[in-house]
């Protein structure tokens, strides 16, 4: 929804949030989650705004809100209402108003260190307690700077200064974050500096209503928080689709000629585009892939991308669509060729008319409302499309993976028989029980996979850790490699054991490896593991969503028999373990 993109029309949002909420609740297929907000100041409007932003991401929240400034009591001593609520996420909204011990000028260094430890320990105890008790994901504010400096500029360097003190306290929080997996920082220190600290900490709102930030700043806070949460649940964007003329360079390559484009260090406008290209290129290292969608002759587009001062070269892109088709058609083609949902793209185009046509035909696509080139980076960046929460090493290689896939398609064209093609790939798989190094990737995959996903059950990292350490589950992952490269972990199956039955809770596979018979290799292994545990019957479930039609007959193909189907299309299948026949004959499997 346009109103919920950065930069915001705060006036509109505050007045119309109820209307917006009603409208967003009409959407289908919302993911439902419980969030507990434990506040050290008033949180009511934070809750309202967060609700709206997350609905826009397809996540419907149910809230628990602690009583005013009862975050510590709720966390440490519990509370029946909170216990029963079973939060998936706990957000701790503390601010510098909640710091109780500050140094004064007479304190020795040792005293100050003690104060600092005591403030930190108070928080760390809360986090440990909450994660032990609920296994929930925790999001914690860091501390914003105070709005006055008793020591003036020395406040930042002197150990008695509050700015110095807050920086040290924040560093301790970051260290905790770096050592704990389900713990994320909501960086209000950065947000308040972007917003303007004097405005952010408008004292009117504290003294009147006990809000630790001014109410018009709340959409920025809530949006930032929503980006963390949507990222945890796998709703980040995955790829850029970029226009060329006046987006990646100044000027129109077809009219002005390559030599007259504004790109490179000579003139201010060239510098702006150069920096923008650098910014985009850095995304490749985060696993975000780059594509082009431009109205141009193909040769001109390539010539522009080969501009000697350009940072992005043709080989940095996976798909380049430079033609005269409508851009929404090109968008759909790109999505199809990459096997990605069209809503996983960020489309960057300087032309509002092009943005409009793409936006109105592709629901959920990210389209920043960029204005002038010097603002491109800020506007894209502050929209938080690629918020990093669980970064796995696989992400680093994503561009290569997509390139490898393009090579495989070329090779496939040279075979008449599909089995021969599969054999020629010399595929090797590792299929075995969950290992600690892959848990992060497994959780990520469970949140990202929409199409080849039988039950669309989502697992946070904490959930996966629970499954991994329990004997009540059979849980396997599959890694697949071939002559063109290593695909990494691309399939996960989790089933829970009930007597001599196994019920499959999760069956997912990345669409990168569709039609490679990996699903048969996985089932072979699952059945083997089941036999080792004396399982006689395996039950499989298919729950239809808007996106997983491709697997509606999955269990039929695997040799299961249909037991039951309800009016919504939910299906239950059954397999007698003893009658199972192995199906994989093209992948060499290491257990």
């Amino acid at each position: 929804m346009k109103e919920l993109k950065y930069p915001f029309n705060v006036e509109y949002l505050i007045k119309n949030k109820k209307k917006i909420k009603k409208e967003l609740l009409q959407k289908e297929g919302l993911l439902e989650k419980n969030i507990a907000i434990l506040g050290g100041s008033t949180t009511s409007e934070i809750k309202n705004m967060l609700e709206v932003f997350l609905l826009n991401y397809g996540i419907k929240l149910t809230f628990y809100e602690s009583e005013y400034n009862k975050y510590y009591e709720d966390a440490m001593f519990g509370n029946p209402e909170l216990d029963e609520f079973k939060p998936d996420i706990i957000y701790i909204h503390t601010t510098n108003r909640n710091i109780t011990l500050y140094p004064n000028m007479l304190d020795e260094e040792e005293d100050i260190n003690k104060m600092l430890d005591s403030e930190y320990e108070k928080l760390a105890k809360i986090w440990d307690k909450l994660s032990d008790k609920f296994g929930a994901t925790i999001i914690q504010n860091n501390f914003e700077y105070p709005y006055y400096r008793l020591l003036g500029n020395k406040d930042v360097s002197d150990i008695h200064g509050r700015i110095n003190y807050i920086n040290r306290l924040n560093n301790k929080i970051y260290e905790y974050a770096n050592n704990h997996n389900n713990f994320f920082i909501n960086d209000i220190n950065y947000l308040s500096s972007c917003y303007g600290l004097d405005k952010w900490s408008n004292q009117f709102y504290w003294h009147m209503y006990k809000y630790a930030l001014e109410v018009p700043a709340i959409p920025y806070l809530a949006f930032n928080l929503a980006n963390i949460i949507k990222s945890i649940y796998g709703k980040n964007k995955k790829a850029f689709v970029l226009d060329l003329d006046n987006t990646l360079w100044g000027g129109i390559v077809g009219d002005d000629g390559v030599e007259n484009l504004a790109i490179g260090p000579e003139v201010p406008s060239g510098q702006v585009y150069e920096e923008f290209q650098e910014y985009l290129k850095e995304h490749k290292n985060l696993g975000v892939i780059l594509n082009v969608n431009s109205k141009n002759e193909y040769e001109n587009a390539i010539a522009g991308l080969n501009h000697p001062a350009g940072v992005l070269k043709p080989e940095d892109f996976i798909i380049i669509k430079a033609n005269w088709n409508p851009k929404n058609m090109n968008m759909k083609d790109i999505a199809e060729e990459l096997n990605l949902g069209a809503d996983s793209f960020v489309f960057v185009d300087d032309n509002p008319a092009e943005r409009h046509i793409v936006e109105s035909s592709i629901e959920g696509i990210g389209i920043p409302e960029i204005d002038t080139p010097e603002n491109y980076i800020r506007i894209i960046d502050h929209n938080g499309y690629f918020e990093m929460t669980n970064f796995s090493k696989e992400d680093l290689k994503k561009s290569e993976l997509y390139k490898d896939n393009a090579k495989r398609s070329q090779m496939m064209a040279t075979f008449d028989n599909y089995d021969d093609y599969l054999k020629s790939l010399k595929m090797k798989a590792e299929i075995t029980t969950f290992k600690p190094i892959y848990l992060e990737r497994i959780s990520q995959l469970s949140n990202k996979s929409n199409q080849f996903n039988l039950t669309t059950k989502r697992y946070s990292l904490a959930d996966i850790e629970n499954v991994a350490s329990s004997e009540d589950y059979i849980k396997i992952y599959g890694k697949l490699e071939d002559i063109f490269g290593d695909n990494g972990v691309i399939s996960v199956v989790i089933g829970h054991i009930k007597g001599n039955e196994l019920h499959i809770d999760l069956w997912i596979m990345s669409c990168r490896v569709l039609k490679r018979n990996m699903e048969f290799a996985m089932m072979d292994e699952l059945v083997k593991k089941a036999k080792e545990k004396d399982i006689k019957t395996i039950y499989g479930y298919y729950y239809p969503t808007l996106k997983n039609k491709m697997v509606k007959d999955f269990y039929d193909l695997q040799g299961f028999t249909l037991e039951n189907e309800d009016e919504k299309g939910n299906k239950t299948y059954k397999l007698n373990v003893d009658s199972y026949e192995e199906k994989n004959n093209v992948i060499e499997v290491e257990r």
Partner: protein
Amino acid sequence: MERKEIFERLNNVFRDVFDDESIVVTDATTSNDIEDWDSLEHINLIVAVEQEFGIKFNMGEVTTMKNVGEMADIIEKRVK
């Protein structure tokens, strides 16, 4: 600005904030007359009114204002 215009604009703000098209505010309207008007919504209402008229209420004003009429008095003085 005419008092009539102030009330028209106030009325729109109230309808938006409380998402209720049936609201008609008068000089005598108080939080007792509107169901959702609790202390938390009051904050949002104040912010929305400030933004509508491009003014800022100070703490003294917000704490002493007793009804919509008094709110309109302050707006009237400020925007002249």
